[in-house]
């Protein structure tokens, strides 16, 4: 009896399958997977949204499809783009989001990034960058020697050892620094120059708004202070430009100690670099095989870099921003609620003492 019932149910299921609704899911070839997006500022309420979608059809002449619309909401813009496109637009493969400088300066970025952070189809590793032109122009321009813009920008923003200054900010990092009470955000800054895109430096934020741009050297200091192990090579000029050298950094150790005092905050920063001297030009060129000369050079480097770092920290103090998170050294000893105001307060009063210890462990094969 029981077997008959099971058999009956199975049979009726098989026979009734033909009556089921047609599958609603869109087949893969009808899906347009957005790979790069750009947002340009128009006015307070509207923005220009540009999407780049890789084309996989071998017959297509262009391998990237781009659409631009003016909109006030991201999803509304996507729906509008769908009206132009023959495909269903999805964000599952989104890799890079670009914003133009004006957009960032008006403090609109956080709203858009937060939208992506909320959206479950978008991963957290989507990279963001600021362009000093318009995002639309960057996405629509021709790069004759590059297969397509999507891969180009994505690869450019991935960290490589020589551009390790690149803070490589993704959606999570940005939301983290925007909502953290001890950090200010930094985002890479791109510039289009004769058929290529160049990593120009980084943009620094105060609250939701972009404040100004910093150079690659300054970005390197931020990363060194944050304790990142793999740093870009350090190029230095000593003795007023008479000596020039390039140091490949192998390891970097940072130790910070605060005096835990909110009224007159003081911070001692100890940095230990270990590196290889790759290139040197200057008066010590022929005597670098002597250990005493190397030690002398190390001392000069220490003096120069600690001065450079102190100058940079003074600049941050003036701007009252804290991209490194120096205020964390005070927050960790503070009982009670910590807010952004306290961070600004600390940074504006902060006195720092930077001590750099460099050790050159190799100068190459020649004696």
């Amino acid at each position, binding site marked *: 009896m029981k077997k008959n019932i099971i058999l009956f149910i199975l049979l009726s299921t098989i026979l009734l399958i033909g009556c089921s609704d047609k599958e609603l899911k869109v087949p893969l070839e009808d899906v347009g997977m957005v790979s790069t997006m750009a947002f340009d500022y128009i006015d307070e309420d509207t923005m220009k949204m540009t999407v780049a979608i890789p084309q996989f059809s071998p017959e297509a002449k262009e391998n990237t499809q781009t659409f631009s619309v003016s909109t006030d909401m991201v999803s509304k813009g996507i729906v509008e783009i769908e009206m132009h496109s023959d495909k269903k637009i999805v964000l599952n493969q989104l890799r890079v989001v670009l914003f133009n400088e004006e957009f960032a300066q008006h403090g609109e970025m956080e709203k858009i990034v937060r939208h992506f952070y909320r959206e479950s189809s978008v991963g957290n590793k989507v990279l963001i960058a600021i362009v000093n032109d318009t995002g639309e122009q960057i996405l629509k321009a021709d790069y004759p020697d590059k297969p397509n813009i999507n891969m180009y920008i994505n690869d450019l923003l991935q960290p490589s050892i020589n551009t390790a200054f690149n803070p490589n900010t993704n959606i999570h990092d940005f939301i*983290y620094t925007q909502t953290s009470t001890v950090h200010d955000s930094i985002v890479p800054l791109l510039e289009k120059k004769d058929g290529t895109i160049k990593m120009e430096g980084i943009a620094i934020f105060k609250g939701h708004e972009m404040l100004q741009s910093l150079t690659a050297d300054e970005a390197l200091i931020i990363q060194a202070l944050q304790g990142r192990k793999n740093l870009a090579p350090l190029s230095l000029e000593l003795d007023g430009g008479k000596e020039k050298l390039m140091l490949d950094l192998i390891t970097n150790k940072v130790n910070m100690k605060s005096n835990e005092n909110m009224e007159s905050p003081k911070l001692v920063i100890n940095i230990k670099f270990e590196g290889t001297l790759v290139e040197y030009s200057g008066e010590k060129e022929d005597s670098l095989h002597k250990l005493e000369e190397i030690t002398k050079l190390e001392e000069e480097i220490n003096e120069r870099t600690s001065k450079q770092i102190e100058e940079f920290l003074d600049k941050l103090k003036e701007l009252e921003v804290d991209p490194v998170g120096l205020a964390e050294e005070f927050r960790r000893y503070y009982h009670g609620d910590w807010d952004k105001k306290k961070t600004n307060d600390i940074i504006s009063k902060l006195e720092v003492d930077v001590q750099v210890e460099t050790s050159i462990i190799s100068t190459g094969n020649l004696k």
Partner: protein
Amino acid sequence: MSQKNLKVLNVYQVIFLVQNIMIGTGILSLPQRLSILGYSQILMPIYFGIIATITLWPMVWLCSQYKGDNLFRINEILLGKWIGKSINVLLVLQFTLFVAGIVSNYMNLIQSNALPEQTMTLPIILLLVLLTYIVNGGIKTIARFCTLSFFITIPMLYFLKWGIEKGEFSHIFPLFNFDMKEFGKALQEGYLSILGYELILFYFPYIVNQKKAFKHTLIGIWITIGICFITTLVSVMYYSEWQLRNIQFSVLHLFKAGELSFVERIDIMGITLWVFLILTTVAGYLWSAKKGLDSLRSKKNNYHVYYIVVAVFGIVMLPASREFQEKLFEASFYIEYIVVAWPIVLCLIHLVRKKQVQS
């Protein structure tokens, strides 16, 4: 039934049964539930472990006084037939609601993260069918399934690696940055996440080595506490306080930080593996509810499981507003606290009525 046939759970099965029933959907939102404490939430799981250890003691003591009986029987013995049975009715209702709450919670998670364009009816039916199958196998099958789930899901801890790499350890300081009111609120919200060990009141008669049951249960509890501790630690390191407060399933976001060359979205893997943890938790409660129905009707009947499963389906699919449903489930979670404290009351009654009951 003879006592010999009843005892089926060996040491490992007790440990994993306790451990796996405790980890359900709770841990997914634990950092968010504790977020009123901000970064200072880090030690909370340890306090939970201590409370669990203290409340476990009366449970095991009570059970060891009535070695062959579960809580439903003990209620009847100690409180008399009528009062005992009425409390048992409430217990069965509570467990049914609790199961519905967990299933609904998990389905919401699947809906919002993995299948945003689909209705959930079919997945709910499939989950319940699988659940019925497991529960029909009895407590030993559930225990075996728990052991299996533990080894399938524990590698997920590896996914936290990237969170640790990117996180800042100094976030955990200062350690005690809260007042008692905030602490109380976090305790009330967060303790839900480690509920599940109280089910020992129902499967105690099935344990082979009852004398060491306390020790084995404790091992299970502290494995869970360890996992909760690691989760909160990594969350505290990786997130800002705003993120801790606002991200709904922060543990899945931790998985999103992962970078494997062959998988893009590790969090989706996490959600799907989580079904094992949901099944073990829900199976434990469903089995207990079934035992309750057995004792209420004073006979064993295989259909009792089906009655409860249909009721669970009905509650999950209830055409009421989402707000009402949420409140209902939230209430059922809080009532579970009473179940945890109930053995203490029973212990007192036992001490008072000892002679009467024994005679």
